[in-house]
């Protein structure tokens, strides 16, 4: 007769005991399986939420960036590209540019593969007095609007072209001369219609008149020539003026590039701030999710061992009472010559059967419960199956091991004489 025969007979004989033990193991296993599944599902959900948040923050950041770009447009351009022989001291002193360069330069720059500059704006500019308006000093600004950079996707233009026969007037001029939209004026003998007037900017812009580049060139006798190219550098973070300069002068050797100073820095800072605030909000969300997750992990870390220990205790207790019931049986088996190893085998065999059956039921139960709780079936990974199963069998075995060893060591004769 083999040991497993004893195991099966005993299981059958004490059905209730076996069923209760299987139930205990099942519940513990189900708890563990479920906890693992929940954590896994939670991790997946966290990732999804974070990805969503990330995208939202990116989008918000981009929108903010765009808004900032528009707002900061008024602050001026980053870089001014000037003819190489232009005396900068003269320019700063008098506010006018005496040297010129071919308008074709801007086309060349736009068709190059320049990466540091995003917006190009060819201009002519001259300080003069407006004879028809009582010789009021103005800055005349000829612009044709933005020249699209060939290798880039078209961007929203920062500045619209001024059509022929139209002018845009700075705040002070408009106020002083009582100019409004659609007012008709004459400048240097040419008729213009006011397209719009700007709000106050507190800069030289307030005394500036913007007209069509072509028209300005004709009026100033500089056909196909320009004074400067305004270039807006978009990747604003950090100091990149050196790089921009090098890139521009490599493409246009007859030029020099100068930085516009403080306004550019302010814009750069504003954009950096937009970026930083977007990133801060994202990292706050990440931290929040992580905190949530670690809380759940903590709960699981307490609950799961608790359930496991609980069922181990229950198993142990049941085996212990079972062992007490079975003390006499152990003594009998020892008396008729079974080795203590064999007696132990009968107990551990029972624990193994209970552990395996309990683990199977527990895993199925846990998966079903997880599916119900989650409304989505996350396929449990190997860990979610092997860990609870291994633990269940281990716990069942351990719960039997100690009492069984104690029982097998008992003095058979003493037990046999008890009645």
């Amino acid at each position: 007769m083999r040991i497993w025969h004893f195991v099966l007979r005993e299981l059958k004989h004490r059905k209730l005991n076996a069923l209760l033990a299987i139930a205990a193991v099942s519940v513990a296993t189900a708890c563990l399986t479920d906890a693992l599944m929940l954590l896994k599902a939670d991790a997946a959900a966290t990732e999804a939420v974070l990805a969503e948040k990330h995208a939202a923050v990116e989008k918000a950041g981009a929108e903010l960036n765009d808004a900032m770009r528009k707002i900061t447009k008024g602050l001026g351009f980053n870089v001014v590209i000037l003819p190489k022989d232009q005396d900068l001291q003269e320019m700063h002193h008098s506010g006018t540019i005496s040297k010129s360069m071919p308008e074709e330069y801007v086309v060349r720059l736009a068709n190059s593969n320049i990466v540091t500059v995003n917006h190009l704006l060819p201009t002519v500019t001259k300080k003069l007095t407006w004879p028809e308006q009582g010789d009021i000093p103005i800055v005349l600004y000829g612009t044709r609007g933005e020249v699209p950079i060939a290798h880039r996707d078209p961007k929203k233009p920062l500045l619209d072209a001024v059509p022929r026969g139209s002018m845009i007037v700075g705040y002070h001029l408009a106020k002083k001369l009582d100019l409004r939209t659609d007012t008709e004026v004459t400048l240097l003998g040419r008729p213009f219609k006011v397209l719009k007037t700007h709000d106050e900017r507190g800069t030289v812009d307030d005394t500036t008149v913007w007209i069509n580049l072509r028209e300005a060139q004709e009026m100033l006798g500089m056909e196909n020539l320009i004074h400067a190219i305004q270039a807006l550098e978009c990747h604003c973070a950090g100091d990149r003026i050196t790089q921009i300069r090098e890139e521009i002068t490599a493409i246009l050797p007859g030029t020099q590039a100068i930085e516009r100073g403080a306004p550019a820095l302010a814009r750069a800072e504003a954009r950096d701030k937009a970026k930083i605030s977007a990133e801060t909000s994202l990292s706050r969300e990440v931290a929040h999710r992580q905190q949530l997750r670690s809380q759940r992990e903590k709960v699981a870390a307490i609950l799961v061992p608790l359930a496991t220990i609980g069922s181990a205790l229950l198993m142990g207790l049941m085996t212990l009472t079972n062992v007490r019931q079975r003390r006499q049986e152990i003594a009998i088996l020892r008396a008729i010559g079974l080795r203590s190893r064999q007696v132990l085998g009968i107990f551990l065999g029972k624990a193994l059967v209970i552990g395996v059956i309990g683990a199977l039921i527990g895993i199925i139960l846990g998966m079903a419960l997880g599916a119900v709780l989650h409304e989505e079936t996350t396929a449990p990974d190997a860990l979610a199956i092997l860990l609870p199963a291994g633990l269940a069998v281990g716990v069942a075995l351990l719960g039997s091991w100690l009492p069984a060893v104690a029982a097998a060591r008992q003095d058979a004769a003493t037990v046999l004489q008890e009645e």
Partner: protein
Amino acid sequence: MIQLDHVSHQYRSPEGPDVLAVDQTDLHVKAGEFLALRGPSGCGKTTLLLIAGGLLRPTSGEVTVAGKQPYHLSQEARAAFRAESIGFVFQQFHLVPYLDVLDNILAPSAASGTTDRQRAEALMREFGLETRAHHTPAALSTGERQRTAMARALYNDPQVLLADEPTGNLDPDNAAIILERLQAFAAKGGAVLMVTHEDQACRAADKTLTLSKP
């Protein structure tokens, strides 16, 4: 075959005073001999039987059974020795509660390693148990339990048979069957040591030893 020299046993119990159950007792049973042991209740008969059966180490004295000194063996070796050489019929039978009659008779085969169903079935028939083969002890009468215990003791074909009141619960006819079986066992060269209170049983034995309270 069974040789106890100056054997004493004192039960130590944590609750009460120590009990001297056996005091300086000599007992010899030769191969082929059938010895009956009698005496008043509590005089140490069962204790002596357990000592002879390798189940209870005496406080002092020498024990030799089937050519071996069981208390000089390790616990595991003593268990193997019991399985191989000794058949024991307990006063309370001590059947395995979850095994049926047939499996109870076969139980010693777990220790010896050879399962002989035919032998178990023959023993069942011999003791009139063939109709109860698949009942557990709880469903048996006292006499049936006693006969199952007897069949189990004989299963491994031991050299020594130790029986604690094997006819105590039987009617004279069934008692006669058991006694005949014990006589037959001795006739084949085995040694029988039987505890009894009955004259019928004593008459079946070759010799009777009467113990008195120590």
